[in-house]
């Protein structure tokens, strides 16, 4: 059952993303104020949702579970690594699509707006996390260091979320999850927006599973080598 779901996840995500693109480009109407550029709403917020809340949220949760002595397991370290790598890809795409949107609505590719700056900072911090993973160290030492860095970087996630409320920003506030909980988007536009969230979340899930498997196979090789080395040392008569 689990295997079937995992095998179907990739094709399902692909179909959902294709459906989102078709709906976003050809079915939904242009906006009264923004015109055709509003079609970016069917990719940009979903990319941001996956990057900020799903990927980095999962990385933070897995880091806590790794640091907590009762739940400490390398599985959580591998899951956090997978989530961060995929999250960085989604964050960079969020910044690029946001920049394109900004060029047409604000007239500039980039501005040091609180939302934009805090998102860029988040991307840089999690790139630092990925760099830290490449520093040679004992697996548990590396996992502990990375978990601490992930938690430190994750502090920026609520800052990104509330930046449009705390500071005067060019970036607009929430469209769906606003303070009144009354979405300012309706009809086919609202459904396509919802579809984009489901599609990119499914794509993210497939990517994280694939990346997690790579991490597990890579480190199972390390474990086999370590076991072989321990056996060799035992055979030499060294007490271990």
């Amino acid at each position: 059952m689990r295997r079937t779901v995992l095998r179907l996840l990739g094709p399902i995500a692909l179909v959902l993303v294709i459906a989102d693109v078709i709906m976003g480009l050809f079915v939904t109407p242009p906006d009264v104020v923004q015109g055709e550029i509003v079609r970016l709403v069917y990719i940009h917020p979903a990319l941001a949702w996956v990057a900020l809340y799903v990927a980095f949220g999962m990385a933070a949760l897995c880091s806590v579970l790794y640091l907590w002595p009762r739940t400490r397991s390398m599985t959580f370290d591998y899951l956090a690594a997978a989530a961060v790598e995929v999250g960085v890809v989604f964050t960079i795409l969020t910044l690029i699509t946001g920049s394109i949107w900004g060029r047409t609505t604000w007239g500039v590719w980039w501005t040091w707006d609180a939302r934009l700056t805090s998102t860029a900072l988040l991307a840089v911090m999690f790139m630092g996390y990925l760099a830290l993973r490449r520093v040679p160290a004992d697996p548990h030492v590396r996992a502990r260091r990375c978990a601490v860095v992930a938690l430190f970087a994750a502090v920026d996630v609520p800052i990104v979320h509330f930046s449009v409320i705390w500071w005067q920003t060019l970036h607009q506030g929430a469209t769906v999850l606003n303070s009144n909980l009354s979405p300012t988007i309706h009809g086919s536009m609202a459904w396509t927006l919802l579809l984009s969230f489901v599609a990119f979340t499914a794509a993210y899930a497939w990517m994280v599973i694939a990346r997690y498997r790579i991490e597990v196979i890579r480190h199972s090789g390390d474990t086999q080598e370590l076991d072989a080395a321990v056996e060799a040392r035992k055979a030499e008569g060294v007490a271990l």
Partner: protein
Amino acid sequence: MSYVIAGYTITLVTLGAYTLSLIVRLRKMRALGRKNKS
């Protein structure tokens, strides 16, 4: 509309390329794993 097409193209090409890289890496790792076992 050209900005919209650019945004969609960059997103889809990047996600597609990243997905392909994951598939290639996974296959390589599985092949290495099988080699190590044998």
